């Protein structure tokens, strides 16, 4: 029985062997079908020239929908063998307009390539429709699948860092973690994440999305662009369009990625060094007469645990993807399968994920019917609590395992030898495994009816179904000094969340002379429903060491709870895009939203926007030869937000209070109001103004884009902390309280050029953002946390700490450290203790001596991305920098405090009478004077510039052996290999604790340094 419950060890071989075998099999089958494929074929040749008659080398010449292709030689000549007689030949070259020419039996085909007006004809998805980039009047960033091909594989959001202006991304390296994404700053207190729209279905970002499926990502940043999503677009919109099949024979694309991940960690002091440090801390405490400290610890012999080695390991992440696609004029299909397995970088982590997608579209007469459907199944075992905290909370003189400690057999602190109250991080994971399983179905079915040539009706029905199963097991066992022994228990919760969406839209497109109209009206209805059940119980049936963990095996304290959530959102929408002579552009949008999350009187609100554009370069008077395109844009609009609970406008009764009475000590139930509410809450609105310019110069090789925006969020829905004296509990009630302002400048410059076989491009993204609070609710002017202050007129979450002013070197210095009234401020201090500034001059150091002393917000952010191709080599590099911010390094608060037994840093240097130059105070056990949390000792400059990604790829298809493939690319990618920073914590790219403590690095999980090996085969 003992071996029945074996927790899966993460590892490449164990997890992938089966799946790899399956893929290999499939691969062979597909290959053979390809080779056997024979048709009515011929040879085609010809010459490609430019507009000026010169030959063009390096043009890709391919048979559309098939696998054959070549490139033109130096003289512009090409030869294509084995071409079907009815094939269409595609000529493409970066910077030139792609041409598709039907062969119609011809065997010679010469063509003239024209230079493309780069990007302007590009189609941009803008929500309920598309527009040409040239006609765009709002601020939209577009990211193509090509830019994502080397990206991290778990979460789409992580790839966005540095790729688009105005998009603030911070990452965590924890398994399955989502990045934090803020578009154009913090515009709301209740929720900062943007709205995701995947193939027309509004949803949230999750770690279950297969990045290979992405065709393009559009980020709608300003009010004009996002207004069509009205009430939900307050934080910006990220539209993800997935790939579709294209006409031609089946195209097969297989990719495999294997990543090795290693965390950047700070070395811990090992046994001898640690003992020296803490003996000194105890000696100082004894000398100072600290209450209860009378002798040094009697360190156990022979134990020297390397906790970092025990807890962390090199993570292996494998990702396999197979995409099959094809189609003809009557329709197209795409099927993709993805398997991902991540061993995680710490003990007790693992994750795996399977995605299956089918996108199809068929056309019959005036009808076009299609669907996008993805099923994702994710399993994840995350760490309990903060992994980093737990690993640094324990000490090297505690053994990982100790058979004398029963139940459990894990090492933990002892009163007189290892008085550490950290939980054994290995034991915590082994004894308390918790897993989460999630199955998500996301998809939509749509019907386009082309009523008239210019009029299309679309019915779009979407569904998102999420099934979650969370299970937390607690096995009997001790991991911490003096811990009470808990009985074994299991908690299991299952939840179902279903969102249904029904949309009717009517789209009109018409051209009358120079007038161009694109208009849409529609309605949407969205219903969110979720239900959850949680059951728990204690004292599980156990045979030997094996626990039976299904709910049937609960023997005592069984409890069950359940709840339901429902919300309805009804919207009416309309948009008019009008352009005159490709010179004057106008866009009007109106959305009216009604939400069940508000009381009757406040259900409905309108979200309008207007935007205008002027293509200066198309004016007759405009004669600047080197400017290829110049457009000015301006817009003004209103967005909304209702990201609150289902029924936050009405107070409910808590039915759980019980009280004990009587000689039999029976319990009686109670009922009362626990959480107070504000019943008049209503829509939060964000008013945004945006001014932009787009410029293309030097034969469009250099494209520049700039935006300036001011956005003001009013009636911000805030769960603003209310006074404890109100008696409120169970969370703070929402109130339309605050008002916020964000201003920003966004600049993008892209250079693209082809020099013979050498193609390269470089993009620089610059973002500068300032936020400030204009108003709080309830007449407040400030909001405090332990480390920060937020005041009206100032940015959110400024650091607010007691200032450290160095180390007392002598008793005289202590005696003369007085306030203005001559009171000695730190009379208990000894030489070697920290000196603090008595900011309020009251003669003592308390939390009221805190002052503003740091800014968590970067002054600006920079992304520099380079891409180059030479023949079969390609190189891409993304760098990202954030400059001017401060961060609070909580990790050092653990390692450097030396007042309670925790891990210490290797090579830690501290003040002694003979080492007076150290910036670190003397260690002092059992006293907070040198280790107080709210002080500037832990505050650091946190600017950084990092090489977030570098990839070198080589396409093997030129080798004869692989000539049957359309592509066979191998590449190696490095992530986070180089981080330039003065920040001494683990990683300056961390997700802050909350919007109020944006710069608080609260034991954040660092981003691993990663090497990714990829193979991509298409045929």
């Amino acid at each position: 029985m003992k071996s029945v419950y074996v927790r899966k060890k993460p590892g490449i071989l164990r997890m992938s062997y089966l799946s790899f075998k399956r893929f290999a099999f499939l691969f062979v089958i597909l290959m053979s079908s390809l080779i056997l494929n024979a048709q009515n074929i011929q040879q085609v040749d010809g010459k490609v020239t430019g507009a000026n008659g010169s030959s063009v080398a390096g043009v890709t010449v391919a048979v559309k929908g098939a696998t054959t292709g070549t490139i033109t030689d130096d003289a512009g000549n090409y030869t294509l063998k084995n071409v079907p007689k009815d094939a269409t030949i595609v000529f493409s070259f970066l910077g030139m307009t792609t041409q598709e020419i039907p062969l119609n039996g011809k065997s010679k085909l010469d063509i003239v390539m024209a230079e493309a007006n780069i990007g302007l004809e590009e189609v941009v998805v803008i929500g309920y429709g598309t527009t040409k980039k040239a006609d765009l009047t709002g601020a939209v960033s577009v990211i193509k699948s090509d830019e994502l091909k080397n990206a991290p594989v778990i979460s789409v959001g992580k790839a966005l860092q540095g790729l688009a202006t105005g998009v603030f991304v911070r990452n965590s390296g924890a398994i399955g973690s989502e990045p934090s994404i803020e578009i154009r700053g913090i515009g709301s207190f209740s929720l900062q994440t943007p709205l995701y729209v995947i193939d027309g279905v509004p949803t949230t970002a999750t770690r279950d999305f297969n990045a290979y499926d992405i065709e393009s990502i559009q980020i709608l940043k300003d009010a004009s662009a996002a207004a069509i999503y009205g009430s939900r677009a307050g934080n910006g919109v990220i539209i993800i369009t997935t790939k579709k099949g294209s006409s031609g024979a089946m195209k097969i694309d297989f990719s495999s990625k294997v990543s090795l991940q290693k965390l950047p960690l700070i070395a811990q002091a090992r046994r001898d060094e640690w003992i020296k440090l803490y003996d000194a801390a105890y000696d100082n405490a004894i000398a100072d007469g600290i209450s209860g400290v009378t002798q040094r610890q009697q360190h156990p012999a022979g134990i020297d645990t390397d906790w970092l080695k025990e807890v962390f390991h090199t993570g292996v992440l494998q990702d396999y993807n197979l995409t099959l696609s094809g189609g003809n004029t009557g329709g197209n299909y795409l099927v993709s399968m993805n398997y991902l397995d991540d061993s995680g970088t710490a003990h007790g982590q693992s994750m795996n994920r399977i995605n299956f997608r089918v996108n199809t579209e068929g056309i019959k007469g005036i009808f076009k019917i299609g669907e996008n459907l993805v099923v994702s199944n994710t399993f994840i075992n995350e760490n309990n609590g903060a992994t980093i905290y737990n690993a640094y909370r324990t000490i090297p003189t505690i053994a990982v395992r100790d058979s004398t400690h029963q139940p459990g057999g894990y090492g933990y602190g002892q009163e007189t030898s290892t008085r550490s109250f950290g939980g054994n991080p290995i034991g915590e994971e082994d004894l308390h495994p918790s897993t989460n399983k999630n199955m998500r179905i996301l998809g939509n079915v749509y019907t386009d009816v082309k009523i008239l040539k210019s009029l299309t009706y679309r019915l779009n029905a979407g569904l998102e179904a999420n099934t979650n199963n969370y299970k937390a097991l607690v096995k009997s066992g001790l991991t911490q000094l003096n811990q009470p022994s808990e009985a074994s228990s299991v908690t299991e919760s299952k939840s179902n969340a279903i969102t249904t969406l029904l949309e009717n839209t009517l789209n009109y497109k018409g051209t009358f002379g120079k007038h161009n109209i694109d208009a849409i009206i529609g309605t949407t209805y969205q219903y969110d429903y979720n239900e959850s059940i949680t059951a728990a119980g204690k004292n599980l049936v156990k045979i030997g060491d094996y626990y039976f963990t299904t709910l049937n095996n609960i023997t005592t304290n069984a409890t069950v709870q359940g709840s339901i959530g429902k919300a309805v959102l009804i919207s009416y929408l309309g948009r008019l895009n009008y352009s005159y002579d490709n010179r004057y552009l106008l866009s009007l949008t109106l959305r009216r939203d009604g939400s069940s999350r508000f009381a009757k009187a406040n259900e409905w609100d309108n979200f309008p926007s207007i935007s205008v554009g002027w293509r200066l370069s198309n004016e007759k008077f405009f004669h600047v030869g080197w400017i290829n395109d110049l457009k000015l844009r301006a817009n003004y609009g209103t967005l909304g937000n209702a990201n609150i609970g289902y029924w936050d406008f009405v107070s409910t009764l808590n039915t759980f209070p019980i009280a004990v009475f009587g000689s039999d000590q029976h319990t009686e139930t109670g009922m009362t109001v626990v959480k107070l509410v504000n019943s008049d809450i209503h829509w939060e609105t964000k008013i945004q103004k945006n001014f932009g310019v787009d410029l293309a110069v030097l034969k469009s090789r250099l494209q520049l884009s700039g935006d300036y925006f001011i956005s003001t969020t009013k009636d911000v829905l805030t769960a603003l902390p209310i006074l404890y004296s109100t008696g409120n509990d169970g969370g703070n009630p929402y109130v339309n309280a605050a008002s916020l302002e964000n201003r920003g400048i966004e600049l993008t410059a892209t250079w693209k050029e082809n020099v013979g076989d050498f193609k390269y491009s470089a993009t620089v993204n610059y973002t500068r953002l300032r936020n400030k609070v204009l108003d709080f609710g309830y007449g407040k002017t400030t909001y405090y946390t332990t480390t920060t202050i937020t005041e009206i007129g100032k940015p959110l979450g400024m650091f607010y700490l007691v200032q450290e002013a160095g180390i007392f070197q002598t008793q005289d210095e202590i005696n003369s450290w007085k306030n203005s009234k001559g009171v000695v401020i730190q009379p208990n201090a000894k030489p070697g203790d920290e000196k603090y500034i008595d900011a309020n001059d009251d003669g003592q150091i308390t939390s009221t001596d805190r002052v503003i002393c740091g800014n968590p917000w970067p002054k600006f952010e920079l992304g520099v991305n380079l891409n180059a191709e030479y023949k079969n080599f390609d190189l891409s590099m993304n760098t990202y920098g954030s400059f001017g911010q401060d961060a609070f390094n909580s990790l050092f608060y653990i390692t450097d405090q030396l007042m309670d037994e925790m891990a210490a840093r290797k090579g830690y240097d501290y003040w002694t009478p003979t080492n007076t130059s150290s910036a670190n105070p003397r260690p002092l056990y059992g006293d907070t004077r040198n280790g107080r949390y709210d002080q500037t000792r832990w505050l650091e400059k946190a600017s950084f510039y990092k090489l977030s990604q570098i990839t070198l790829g080589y396409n093997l298809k030129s080798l004869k052996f692989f000539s049957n493939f359309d592509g066979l690319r191998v590449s190696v990618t490095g992530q986070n290999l180089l981080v330039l920073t003065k920040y001494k914590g683990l990683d300056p790219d961390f997700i802050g604790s909350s919007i109020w403590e944006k710069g608080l690095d609260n034991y954040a999980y660092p981003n691993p340094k990663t090497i990714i090996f990829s193979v991509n085969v298409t045929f």
Partner: protein
Amino acid sequence: MKKLLKLTLLIIVGFLYSCSKDLLDVANPNTPTSQVFWKTENDATLGLNAVYHAFYAGGTWQLNMFFRNDLTSDEGWSNSPALDLAEYTRFIYSDYNDYNENTQIWKYHYKAILRANLVIANVSNITFTDESKKKDIIAQAKFLRGFYYFYLAILYENVPLVLNPSNAGDAPKQNTLTEVFTQCIEDFTEAAADLPTTRASTDLGRATKGAALAYLGKVYMQMGNWQAAKDAFYWLVEGDGATNYGLMDNYRDNFKHTTENNKESVFEIQFSDVNQIFAGLYGISNDIPSSNVGCARAQYFGIKGIGWCDAQPRRWIIDEYYKETNATGGLDIRLRDNFFYPNLQTDFPGEKIYGQDWSVLNWGSNTVTSNYWRKYQNDYWRTYENNYSPINYRTIRYADVLLCYAECLAQLNTTPPALAIQCVNRVRQRKEVNLLPLESSIYANVCTDKTLFLNRLKVERSLELCAETVRWIDLKRWKPWNDPTEWAALLVRDPDFNNFVKGKSERLPIPQLEVDNNPNLTQNPGY
């Protein structure tokens, strides 16, 4: 084609209209709203029970009240490695917002007060078939409101009085200690008038007239109004209520779960281990299904290796018991029942420490850290502790009332009257304790001198009531910091008082967040 267009338009228009606004009416299926509550007698009972539920919170009587009262006073101290906890017991407050040690207490007291206010404000509008039941419910709510304000006043003094159900945006005004005590007097007086003298066996644990009067007396004592205090206690000691109360023969019966709600209990918080659900902070979380209605004190006060050992007794109390023997020449039995200490097994042969011998377990060899609390521990019936101790907690025992009465009588007279001495003797001569009457004991001289008698009471109270959340209240009444001799003695008993700053440390700092966020509130002096 035109037909199709018309049809489509019809569909759309039809859809627009069918989106009637009723679709947005989504009722909450989970729980009733407050709008349908406070209509029936049953609602009143449910609302009142929810006030009693407020005892089961870390900020009230599951944990923190023991730290704040028993460890702040000279009876206890903390050697906890959780330095916030330890330093709060040493008058070192480096973080006024410390959630575990400070903010939680403030928050959960006001939470309880909100519940009481809801009952008081709403129940008067409910029609009852039996009017006395309605009065009883409101009186219980008033008692509980007075109860929480009394402890807030003891701990923070200058707290806002919130007497009506709160709105989210309220920023209540600060009140003085006298105003808060005056409110307590009003609540306890009104409660005493309507509360029954005894409870049916199924209702034990609910407030009684005696409980309200005992607290009323305590409030008056803190205000130095000895006559009013005596008048309040009179009903329990000399008046009609006296027959309802008495002392248990066995001292430890007051600290066991098997002898609860006995005649010595004046007000008793009911704990049960029926729901051993570990949730929330330290396993303490209220308003959740099947929430823990046990007490966490025993786990936190537990001897090393059994509990967290965050609380230990000061040695002087143990030494104090050795100064006098009982009528048969033996040691005061209360020493055995209150402490685990190095000589326990030699002083009282046959005693065990959770079934073990002291020498086996090596609970620390040096004298500073080798004394532990036994009172309210579960060692008499099991070998472990957890967060679910079922032992009811007696916030006022009859022994306390008798000693208070003695103090009032002594204060009101130039020499201690006979009744005062008799009250002390009743406690000293509890059957099992069996000390000599004060006048025949080695302390006979105190019986004729008011000051000596009052000083002796200070010791008698500790010997009887140590670690019963009364000593800090007593110290605040006696103010030893105003008398150089007493102060010097106090520093010897508890060196933590070296950090005590007169004019400041008598009260806790108000949680800074509350001060910062309430323009009508100022921080306590000195902080």
